[in-house]
């Protein structure tokens, strides 16, 4: 049976009361509720092991939640495989370790899902891919294999690959954490321009400068729970909770 879908919903993502426990009684998400509006950039921060990545990975069904509900663009993430695939088509994800396909050229990496999932012809896909690669600044590397690229270039290709499905939401899972310092900037630039174009983004990051400058809202979590959630300016200048102030003092 179809679940009732709320029409005209402001929220493109609503994650309601998520619970997830890893084996060994490790609470990754504990009564965790986050809603994201269209065009909003939400940054999720917190100490390592607080469940930030788990939250992102639950949003596109890479991990199962124990209870709660997730709805993306009106589609419920439930047991139906079709819903899961539909959500993944609307949600692009960028990983910490890039995860490019090493046996394919950069262009083939970006083409793959367009051809398989969007059923575009090879030439259509290639045209769009080259435009995307140009946008992230690696178009001259289209014909090489990922191992010939620097980390920053690989991550930009990974962003292009995620954008190739024309997603409505982009998830960034510590996209700059595996990069050498001098390459972080080029990846953040791409993310900044995406945000400028109005892309809805959920970003897990340790780059507080980026969070402060680009995001609309910050969610601070610890041990699977939300400690504080506030508009970016408020979060950084006048955090309500003592735990948040401690965290910010450590990290800034």
């Amino acid at each position: 049976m179809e679940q009732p879908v709320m029409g005209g919903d402001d929220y493109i993502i609503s994650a309601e009361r998520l619970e997830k426990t890893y084996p060994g009684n490790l609470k990754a998400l504990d009564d965790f509720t986050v809603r994201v509006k269209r065009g909003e950039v939400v940054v999720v921060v917190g100490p390592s092991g607080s469940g930030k990545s788990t939250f992102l990975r639950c949003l596109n069904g890479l991990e199962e939640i124990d209870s709660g509900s997730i709805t993306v663009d009106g589609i419920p993430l439930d047991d139906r495989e079709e819903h899961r695939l539909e959500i993944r088509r609307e949600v692009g994800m960028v990983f910490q370790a890039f995860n490019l396909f090493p046996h394919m050229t950069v262009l083939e990496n970006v083409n793959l899902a367009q051809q398989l999932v969007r059923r575009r012809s090879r030439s259509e896909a290639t045209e769009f891919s080259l435009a995307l690669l140009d946008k992230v600044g690696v178009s001259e590397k289209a014909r090489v294999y990922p191992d010939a690229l620097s980390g920053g270039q690989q991550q930009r290709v990974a962003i292009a690959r995620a954008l190739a499905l024309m997603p409505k939401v982009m998830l960034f899972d510590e996209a700059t954490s595996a990069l050498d310092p001098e390459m972080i900037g080029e990846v953040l630039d791409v993310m900044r321009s995406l945000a400028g174009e109005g892309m809805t983004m959920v970003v897990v990051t340790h780059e507080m400068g980026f969070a402060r400058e680009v995001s609309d809202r910050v969610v601070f979590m610890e041990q699977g729970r939300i400690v504080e959630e506030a508009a970016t300016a408020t979060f950084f200048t006048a955090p309500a909770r003592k735990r948040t102030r401690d965290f910010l003092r450590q990290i800034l």
Partner: protein
Amino acid sequence: MHQRPLKFSLLDYTLLALLLSAAGYITFRITVQLEYNWNWSVIPQYLFRYDQEQGRWVANYLVDGLITTLRLSLWSSLLAMVLGLFMVLARTSSSLFLQLVSRCYIELMRNLPPLVLIFICYFFLADQILPRLGLETLVAEGPEWLTGMVGWCFGQPSSLVPFCSALLTLAIFESAYVAEIFRSGIESVSRHQWEAAHALGLRRHQALIHVILPQAFRRVLPPLAGQLISLIKDSAIVSVISIQELTYQGTQLMASTYLTIEVWITIAAMYLLLTFPCSMAVGWLERRYRRRRV
């Protein structure tokens, strides 16, 4: 990396001399003590003979046997790869039933002596099942191109049924090992690759076909090729069901000529002729893939 040039030292020459004298001593013992009459001159005629009717040189026993071994190895390798792929897909599928089927198959095949398997397959397949399919009549009465093609691929139509049962047995037996090799390859691909494929909206089989298997296949190429070389060697056991491959021809020739040592040394050389180039090819592949880091 700088490597020191490799050279023979005095010790190496001494060892070489010792080895050569050991070989000489053994030859001497055979000749003198066994009163063995070496006769290499008759061997070539069992490789090729001059056919008076056709007026040209044709393959004789040994080369015939070599060709049969080659056919047997080639077709059973291909079949083993296909079966192995199916088994590993079943083994890694999400269905418990398929997982159990492939586990049983793989464990059974890996834990039975191949010789026993050969007999079981021969008496059931070749005796009971294959003749009912009417393959022989189908081929014999079929159009000329079919008869010709089958003859070229599988040898004489008269021995088609035993040949097919030997081929199937070898393929079934080897496919269990091939499946295990494939499985190690699939498992060696990082789970991040699965996640990246899933995050792009690929279905499980699309991720498998386009992302996982190509990477797995490159990694298992060397062990896979090694397994196929061992299939060439293992194919000798089907001589027990009178498939006229190289080893069987050897036993026949030995019985009729009593040239035991010459015959088996020739046969050893002929097996080497098949397997050694394969080993070289595997080494070349390994070096090539190491360069291209997959």
